[in-house]
C-alpha cells in the first residue's frame, strides 16, 4: 500500500518518521553520554562523547538515590493496589453482569460516576480523611486511595463477564456447585485476559502516579520512585552526571518491561481507552 504512493509523499513520510524517532531516541543517548562524562567535560563540551567513560556513576547514583528502597516502595504499593483492585472489581463486575437484583442499573451508574470526578477534585478532602484516620505518612493512605479507583476496572470486568453465557453458571448450579465456587473456579479462570488488561493499565497508572504520594508520603523511607527522583534532582545541584545517571536508573526498568511485554501493554491500553 505504501509503495503505491507518489515518491515525494514517501520521502516526506520517511522524513517525519525519522524526525520523531530521533526526538525520542536522542534524549536517551544524551543521558547515557552525559552520565558517563565528568562534570568538567559536561560544561566544556555538552554534546561530545565521554573520553573516559565512568561506569561507576551508576553504582553511586543507585546508592545515593537510595534506589533499592524506592523500587521496593513503588513495587510494593503498586502490586498490592493492583491485586486488590483486580479482586474487588472482578467480583463487582461479575455481580453486575450475571445477577438480577433491584437497583442494578443505578448501582452501575453510581460506579461509573467516578470517571467524571478527577483526583484533583477530591485531593483536599481525601487528605483530611486520611489525616483523621491517622494514615498520612503510611503506605495505607495511597493504597486505600488506589483501591477506590474502581470505575474503569468495574466497567471493564462487567463488559467482559457479560460476554460469558449465563448458562455456564446455571449448569453448575444445577450440579450443586456453590456460588463461591462458581465464581472462583469457573468465572475467574475465564476472566484471565480481562485481568491482564486491567492489571497492565492500572500498573502503569499507579507505578507512575505522583500526586497522591506527593501529599501522603513525606517520610524519606516511604518515598516512591517518582517522589525520590524529584527529591534527588533537587538535592544534588552540582553533580549533573550523577543526576542524569539517576534518571537512567528510573527510566531503564519501565523501558525493559515495555520492550518485553510490548504486545500485551499496547493491547491493554487500546482496549482500556477505546472500550471505556
Amino acid at each position, binding site marked *: 500500500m*505504501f509503495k503505491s504512493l507518489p515518491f515525494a509523499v514517501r520521502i516526506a513520510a520517511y522524513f517525519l518518521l525519522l524526525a520523531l524517532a530521533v526526538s525520542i531516541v536522542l534524549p536517551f543517548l544524551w543521558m547515557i553520554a552525559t552520565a558517563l562524562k565528568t562534570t568538567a567535560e559536561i560544561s566544556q563540551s555538552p554534546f561530545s562523547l565521554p573520553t573516559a567513560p565512568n561506569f561507576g556513576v551508576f553504582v553511586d547514583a543507585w546508592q545515593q538515590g537510595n534506589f533499592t528502597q524506592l523500587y521496593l516502595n513503588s513495587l510494593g504499593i503498586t502490586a498490592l493496589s493492583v491485586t486488590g483492585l483486580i479482586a474487588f472489581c472482578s467480583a463487582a463486575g461479575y455481580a453486575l453482569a*450475571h445477577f438480577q437484583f433491584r437497583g442494578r442499573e443505578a448501582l452501575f451508574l453510581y460506579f461509573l460516576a467516578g470517571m467524571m470526578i*478527577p483526583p484533583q477534585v477530591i485531593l*483536599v478532602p481525601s487528605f483530611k480523611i486520611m489525616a483523621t484516620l491517622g494514615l498520612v505518612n503510611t503506605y495505607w493512605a495511597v493504597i486505600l486511595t488506589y483501591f477506590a479507583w474502581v470505575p474503569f476496572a468495574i466497567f471493564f470486568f462487567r463488559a467482559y463477564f457479560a460476554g460469558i453465557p449465563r448458562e455456564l453458571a446455571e449448569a453448575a448450579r444445577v450440579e450443586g456447585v456453590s456460588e463461591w465456587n462458581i465464581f472462583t473456579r469457573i468465572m475467574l479462570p475465564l476472566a484471565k485476559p480481562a485481568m491482564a488488561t486491567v492489571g497492565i493499565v492500572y500498573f502503569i497508572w499507579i507505578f507512575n502516579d505522583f500526586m497522591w504520594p506527593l501529599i501522603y508520603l513525606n517520610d524519606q523511607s516511604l518515598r516512591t520512585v517518582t517522589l525520590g527522583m524529584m527529591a534527588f*534532582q533537587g538535592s544534588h545541584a552540582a553533580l549533573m552526571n550523577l543526576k542524569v545517571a539517576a534518571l537512567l536508573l*528510573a527510566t531503564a526498568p519501565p523501558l525493559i518491561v515495555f*520492550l518485553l511485554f510490548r504486545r500485551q*501493554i499496547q493491547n491493554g491500553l*487500546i482496549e482500556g481507552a477505546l472500550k471505556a
Partner: protein
Amino acid sequence: MRRSGRTKFHIWLLLPAFAFYTVFWIVPAVVAFLSSFTQWNGVSLASIRWVGLANYVELFDDRWFWNALRNNLLFVAVVLCAIIVLGMTYALILNARPRGHSVFSTIFFIPIVLSSVVIGLLFTQMLSPTVGLVGPALSALGVPGVSEHQWLGSRDTALPMIMLVYVWQQLGFAILLLLAGLQTIPNDYIEAARVDGASAWNITCHITLPLMRPVLTVVIVLVTTNAFLLFDLVVVMTNGGPFHASEVLSVFMYSEAFLKGNPGYGTAIAMMLFVIVLCVSVIQLALSGRGQKAA
C-alpha cells in the same frame, strides 16, 4: 439470570468495591463540594465556617485564578491541536505499513510507559542553560544567544516548553489509539474506492476520516480531559513559575490548599476543574449521540 430472592451472594461480591469507592472517592467528592462553601484554617475542625459563595466570589475576583485558567485553556488548545494533527498524520503513515514500521511504532510508544515526573526531570536537565542539550545544540547550529537562555526560567518560554514536553510524552498514546482505529476499518471499502480510481488523498478524506469519527472523538476527549488536569509536569519543571507564568488550575489549587493553607479556597478551585471536565464529557456524549443517529 440469577434472582436475588434465594441468595444474597451478589451483595458480598459488590461490597468491597462499593465500600472503598464510596468512602475514599464519593465521600471526598461530596465533602469537596460542601467545603467549597466554607472557610477554615485546615487544622482544627472547630474553625470551619459556612461562608456561602464567598470562596467563589473571591475566586472570580482573583487575577491568579484567571491567569491559571487562561494558561490552562491555552495549554489545552495548543497540545490538543498538535497531538491530534500529528497523531493522525503518524497513524496514517504507519497504517500504510512503510518499511520498518514496527521499529518506528515501538520507538514512538516508549514515552507511554515512562512517568511524567521522570520525563519532566529529564527535559529539565536537557533544557538547562550552558550544560544542557537544547541550548548548546541550537547555538552550535548558529542560533545566536540561546546557549545561556533559561528555557524554564523565562516567562515567554516556560509554558511553551511544558507544552512541547507534553506533546512528546502523549503523542505515542494518541498514535497507538488512532492506529488501532484505522486498523478496524474494513479493507473492502478502501479497495473498492481504489478500484474505482480514487486517489490516496481522496480515500483518506472521504472514507478513512469519516469512519474514524468515533475513535477520534474518544481520543479528543481523553486528550482534552488529561490536558486540563495537567499537574505533574508543571510541578516538576517549573512549579508554576516564573511568577505564575506556567501555573495551571491543578497547580494553583495545590498551592492554595496545601502550601498556603486555604483548603476551602482550594476546593472551590477544584470544583471549577470538575465543572470543566464535566462539560467536556457532556459534549462528548452529545457528539457521540449525534454520530449514532447519523449512522
